[in-house]
Structures are given as structure tokens and as C-alpha cells.
């Protein structure tokens, strides 16, 4: 009678072959597990969208890393999250430029080596030494992208000519149809520009601040609501709001791509630029990985990813990035005016002095502005 042996029943291997295979498996296991373990997790603190697959998936796959994003809304929120976390919690910090100074002052970010980044390829000379990004000749943050805030409107209710001034928000037909992005900084900055404070829009003395408050209060009867990102998006999309104060192409751009009749322009009084920059978290054990990712985002491919970001678009800051965008996605380059010679080219607007970098109030505290914002909302 045939009795199957162990060796013959196991895939037809004899004992010697089985031992060999088993030994090989045992010896290679540590390498297999090490290969799995090599997927490095990078903790990212950022506005929503920066850690989403449309931006990072390709990089993750190519570099065997995994981003673990923690999203925030607003610079205050970001600072609080860092303040309440142990050092080294966040490897990569995406911050609004006006908060970099505070990050640095509090010792939350590492010094960066300027030579690691394409500072000689910037589209505007300001970007090489962006305000607040350098201290005592040392660099602490790398500008990634920007966007401009101005008059955002529904083309069916506001003409392009009317949108050339913030005065359009007071248009009688828009009563109850003007929405606010629920953050005091951009709206009050715009009101300051409307009051003619120009480059000094954040540096207001008592009289100027009182005037800005008065101007803002006069807009209250026009206001139909105060919204977060989703609400702003919905309000413009379903037509409840016909104009929006405090936003720009970062929201209308997404809707425009979707076919909605909305647009954003920089009015004659000027616009405000939001600027987003990457820093490396103090105490990060993955500083090299973080640096490598920032280098990628500053490369032409990374700049294109940033400009096309699904959550909200932003313009390229490097010449090579813009060239790559034009080549890869002419439609988006045209829509966002990132074409040399375009009159609404964001870089041209900065050069013409029509754009002012977003900042925090110089003579009042953020609390003063926020208190007024609460008063305004309840008026």
C-alpha cells in the first residue's frame, strides 16, 4: 500500500529541498519585514488638501513614504496645535506666510539651508527672501505657492467692470446676497484697502482703524451670511450668494473649473495675497525626508501638482514651475492667468503694486480685530 511521505506530500519536495526552502524563507524574512517597515510616515500639519492623494500619492509611491496629514483652518489654529503637541510631532508644517515669524519666534521650526532650494528661479524677487521667512540671515521657511484675494462674484449679477472696485459689494441689488468668508483678516484687509490705506492696510492708527470699522459696518445690511470653506463654496454654487468678500480664486477657481459662472478679480484698490510656505518642524526625526519632499514640491513637477491641487488652486512661484504648468495644463495656466504677458498675471499684479501680502494687524491685536468681527456679525 502506498503511504504518502511528508516529503512527497509537500509540493513534491524532498526533505533536503524543504529544509533549504525553509531556511531561505527564515533568512529572508527580516529583509521582507524591513522593506515593509521602510515606509516612512511623515507627519504633516497643513491646510486641507496638501496631504491629499492628488498632491502626494505619486511622491509617496516613488519614495516609499506615507503622509499623515493633520489639517487646520487658520494660522491661530495651527499655532495652537503645535503649542499643544510635544516637539517633533510634526515633520512638515505648511503655514500661511504671516505666521512663519511666530513659528520661528516660538522655536517651532528648524533652520533651512537656502542652497537646497531653487531660490534663484523665483518668479518675483520678493519670493527669495519672503517677509518673515528669514531671520538674522537664516532661512526658516520656503515659499510654496500663493493666491490672490479680491472681489469674487457671480457673473450674472455683477459685471466685470463693477467688480473692479470693492464698491460693488454695496450694490443695492446685492442686498442679502453678499457672503463673508468667516475670518476677520481677509475681509478687514479688503475694507482697509477700500478705505485707501494701500500698502499700509495692516498698519492702521486709531483713526484709520475706526474708519475701517465704520466702513465694514456699513456693509452689514448687504450680508447674507458668514461661511466656512464648505459654506462659501455652496453659497456661490447654488446662487444664494452673488458676491463674496474675503476670498479669491482659491474658491471661485474650483467652481469655475466646474462650470459655475463665478470669477475673482483684483479691484483697483488692490488685492491681498495669501502665501503658503513649508517649514520643517523642530525636533523632527525625519527632517531629511521633509526636506526632500519640499524640494520635490519646489521642482517643476511639484509646482504643477500644487497649482492643480483639487482642494484649492494656487499659483506657481518658480519660473520652471510655471513653464511646466503651461506645458502640462495650458487650460489651467490660462484660467489662472499664469501666462507671461497676461494683464491679470499674479506676478505682474505684484510688480504693479496692486497686491499686498497678507499680514497681521500691526497697531492692534488680533483679538481687537476678532472682537470687532464678532460685533459685526451680531450687528
Amino acid at each position: 500500500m502506498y503511504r504518502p511521505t511528508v516529503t512527497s506530500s509537500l509540493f513534491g519536495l524532498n526533505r533536503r529541498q524543504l529544509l533549504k526552502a525553509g531556511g531561505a524563507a527564515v533568512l529572508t524574512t527580516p529583509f521582507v519585514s524591513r522593506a515593509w517597515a521602510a515606509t516612512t510616515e511623515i507627519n504633516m500639519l497643513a491646510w486641507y488638501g496638501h496631504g491629499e492623494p492628488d498632491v502626494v500619492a505619486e511622491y509617496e509611491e516613488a519614495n516609499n513614504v506615507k503622509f499623515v496629514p493633520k489639517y487646520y483652518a487658520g494660522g491661530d489654529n495651527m499655532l495652537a496645535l503645535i503649542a499643544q503637541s510635544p516637539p517633533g510631532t510634526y515633520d512638515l508644517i505648511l503655514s500661511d506666510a504671516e505666521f512663519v515669524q511666530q513659528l520661528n519666534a516660538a522655536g517651532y521650526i528648524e533652520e533651512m539651508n537656502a542652497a537646497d532650494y531653487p531660490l534663484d528661479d523665483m518668479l518675483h524677487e520678493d519670493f527669495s527672501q519672503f517677509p518673515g521667512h528669514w531671520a538674522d540671515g537664516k532661512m526658516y521657511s520656503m515659499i510654496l505657492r500663493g493666491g490672490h484675494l479680491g472681489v469674487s462674484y457671480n457673473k450674472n449679477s455683477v459685471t466685470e467692470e463693477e467688480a473692479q472696485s470693492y464698491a460693488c459689494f454695496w450694490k443695492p441689488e446685492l442686498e442679502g446676497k453678499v457672503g463673508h468668508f468667516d475670518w476677520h483678516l481677509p475681509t478687514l484687509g479688503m475694507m482697509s484697502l477700500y478705505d485707501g490705506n494701500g500698502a499700509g492696510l495692516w498698519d492702521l492708527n486709531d483713526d484709520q482703524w475706526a474708519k475701517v470699522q465704520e466702513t465694514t459696518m456699513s456693509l452689514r445690511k448687504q450680508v447674507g451670511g458668514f461661511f466656512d470653506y464648505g459654506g462659501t463654496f455652496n453659497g456661490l454654487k447654488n446662487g444664494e450668494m452673488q458676491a463674496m468678500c474675503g476670498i479669491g480664486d482659491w474658491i471661485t477657481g474650483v467652481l469655475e473649473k466646474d462650470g459655475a459662472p463665478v470669477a475673482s478679480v483684483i479691484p483697483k484698490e488692490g488685492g491681498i495675497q495669501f502665501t503658503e510656505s513649508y517649514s520643517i518642524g523642530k525636533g523632527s526625526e525625519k527632517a531629511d525626508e521633509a526636506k526632500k519632499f519640499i524640494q520635490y514640491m519646489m521642482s517643476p513637477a511639484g509646482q504643477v501638482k500644487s497649482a492643480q491641487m483639487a482642494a484649492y488652486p494656487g499659483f506657481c512661484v518658480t519660473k520652471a514651475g510655471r513653464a511646466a504648468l503651461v506645458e502640462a495644463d495650458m487650460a489651467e495656466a490660462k484660467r489662472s492667468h499664469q501666462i507671461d504677458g497676461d494683464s491679470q498675471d499674479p506676478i505682474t499684479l505684484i510688480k504693479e503694486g496692486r497686491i499686498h501680502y497678507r499680514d497681521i494687524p500691526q497697531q492692534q491685536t488680533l483679538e481687537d480685530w476678532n472682537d470687532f468681527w464678532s460685533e459685526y456679525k451680531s450687528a
Partner: protein
Amino acid sequence: MSSNPEQRPNLYALTWRLPIIFWQLIFFVGPVLFMVAMSFFLVKNYRMTEAFEFVNWSRMLTRGFFWDSYWYTIGIATLSTVCAMCIAFPAAFALAFRASESTRRWAIFLLIIPFFTSYLVRTFSWFVILSESGVVNAMLGYVGLGPYTMLNTNFGTLVGYMTLTLPLVVILQTVTMANIDKNLIEAARNLGCSPLRTIWQVIIPLSKTGLIIAAIFCFILSFGDFVAPFYLGGSQEPTLPILILDTTKSGQQWPRAAVVAIMMMVTLFAIAFTGIALAYRKGKGAK
């Protein structure tokens, strides 16, 4: 010498009460005490630091916008309570006195179902219905009316509050009225009481406790709700929950937000205790 057994603590009963006591201590008393303490803390460099300063109280309570929000929240929550009670009463009356036992059971089951879904999702669905290009305005358009602005208004906020509270109010009213002794109603009718007078002088007094409890629940839920005034009311005239959010957003002022929260709790306690006292107050001649 002998001790009165009625005065001796019943350890068996006390043991069974322990879980609820612990629950209250851990999830209510503890956090409330911490919140009270926090209202005296200070925020330095976006980080809370322990202190005992009254600056948060003076800062919040001397601001006009706080009191505007406070009275607005009380007003809209009261309006919500009145609306919910009025809308719910006929439905609850019908379920309690007109519907069969099985219909009532099914109706209560159906009223519970909304609680299985996210309130936020239910609120967002109102966007489609209430927007200017939404379902309601489309239907009104067929008869030559509208469009009316319903989102980002007090009406929108009220719709949200009703979404949250109405099923609960109907359930509480129904259960209360269903437990009224039907003989008393029949007696009133036999003695010549009109249907309306029967409601006013028999049904409402007999279901007073349940009705007041339903109203208190409705008020508490509306008063503390953030979703409806923010998403359907457009944050126009911020309610106190929205003010809490605004306060924490700017400079992470959790201590000031704690002041707002404590004011809300004190108000709710006052209203709840007054309501409960009214609910259980015995009428004239009662023994």
C-alpha cells in the same frame, strides 16, 4: 437601644446607584469643574496657562456682542420651542387619542428612525430643499410665487431646529397624552364640555408634566445647537455656540469660550429647574 431601619443607608440600593454616580462625576461634574477653573486661566503664546484672573469674565461680559448673542439665542430657542410644541401637539393628539395601538407604535418607531442618521447630514439635505433653486422654490414657481430666500435666515435656523427637536417632542407628547385616563376625558364630554374646552381644561392640565418636559428638551437642544444656525442660518446673528467657536478660533481663547459655556449652562439650569418646578407644582386644591 435600636436604630431606625428606615434611616439606615441601604447599601444594596446604593451599590446599584454607584455606576450612575460615577458616570455623573466623570463625565459631568469633573468637566464642569475643569471648565469653571479654565475660565480663570490665561492664554499665552497660544498655550493655556494656569492662573486665577477675572479678565476673561470681564472681557466677555462687558462686550455688547456677547449680550446680543445671548438674547438672540434665548429668543430663537424660545421660538423654536413654541413652534415645535405647536406643530407637535396635533400630531401627538391624533396619535394618542385617534390612532390604534399598533398605528401609534409604528408612528413612534418611525419618529425614532431620524435619530439613526447623522443630524449634520439631515441638515445638509435642507440645502437642496431650501435654496433659491431648490425644491420648495421650484414648486412655488409653478404657482407663480417666489423665489424666497430661506437659507441663511432665521427661518432656515428654525427648520434646522425642527429637524433636531420635532420628532422627540412628538414622541414625548404622544407618550404623555396616551397615558391619560380616557375615562376623565369621557366624563368631561358627558358633562357637556366642548372638545376645545376638554383639551384646555382636561388634557393639557393632565399632561402638563410631559408637555413641560418636552418643551424643556426642545429648548435645551435648540439653545445648544451649533449646526442649524451655522449652516442653515448662515451664522447671521451668531448664537452662543457659534460665539464659542469664534472665540476659540481667534487666539485659541478657550478660557473665554469657557465663560460663554458657563453662562449657557447657568441659563439652562435656571430654565430647566423653573420648568421642572412648574411641571410638578400641584394645582389649587390638590392634596
